[in-house]
């Protein structure tokens, strides 16, 4: 709390009670802890600013109750309009509200995975199989997949990163293969 704004214990408890109810509603809506905390911080700021506008610095419990009465009830957060709303442009790339593996993530995994797998194969070939030659098939396949998925999800940051990374790696491999065969 800031210096210029003081809440007595009862007023603070009233605000915390409201925030706890919202937190519970958000938890029931399967929202992550960090997202819930962001929302609670914004609600708290709003409550305090409404109190500051309403009083001259020392709000009472009644002031807090009056401000909270102006706000949405905690249950309205459980209705979670977020889960189904405003996802039109991205619905194809997002399985659930908290989807773990979306196309852009798969694209980036392919981009990075291609390099990792190739390095591992090269190490295995050299140290385990006694210098057997490795082919860049895995690398080319994974990077091509990363590039295609990255382009398909270009509007998302990870998709864009995957497409650029895969394109760079593919160019390098093709140039290397050209030089090696020359």
């Amino acid at each position, binding site marked *: 709390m800031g210096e210029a*704004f003081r809440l007595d214990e009862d007023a603070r408890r009233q605000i915390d009670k409201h925030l706890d109810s919202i937190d519970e509603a958000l938890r029931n809506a399967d929202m992550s802890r*960090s*997202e819930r905390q*962001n929302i609670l911080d914004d609600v708290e700021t709003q409550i*305090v600013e409404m109190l500051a506008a309403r009083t001259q610095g020392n709000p009472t419990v009644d002031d807090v109750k009056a401000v909270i009465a102006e706000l949405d009830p905690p249950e309205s957060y459980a209705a979670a309009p977020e889960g189904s709303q*405003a996802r039109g442009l991205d619905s194809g790339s997002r399985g659930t509200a908290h989807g773990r593996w979306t196309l852009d993530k798969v694209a980036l995994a392919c981009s990075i995975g291609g390099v990792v797998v190739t390095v591992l194969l090269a190490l295995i070939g050299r140290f385990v199989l006694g210098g057997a030659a490795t082919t860049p098939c895995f690398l080319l396949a994974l990077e091509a997949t990363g590039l295609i998925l990255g382009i398909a999800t270009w509007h998302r940051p990870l998709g864009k990163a995957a497409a650029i990374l895969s394109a760079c790696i593919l160019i390098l491999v093709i140039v290397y293969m050209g030089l090696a065969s020359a």
Partner: protein
Amino acid sequence: MRAWIAQVRKGLVELCIMAALRKGEAYGYELLQALSNAEGLAVTESTVYPILSRLTKEGWVRVRAAPSPAGPPRRYYRLTPFGLARLRQMEEYWKDIEESTNALIEGGTE
């Protein structure tokens, strides 16, 4: 009728939030007040803050905390470059469907 209005509004709030952030950063309550003035949109905090939280999580906006004259720090939201690009896509899409819808409403059959 009420259910239909709610459905239409839901899809537009995210676009409006991002459009409001195009002018520069704003903290949650400030943004809420700006959007509340938009006639017909009728947004409240239980709609706006969860969307801001998700937009942050997905990288379309970023947040910085700054001291407030009263109470806890204000959390200022700003569009990231990716968010700005996405906003442009959303606006293009909105203009397309707006034209098509208006044409149908006005009975403009080809």
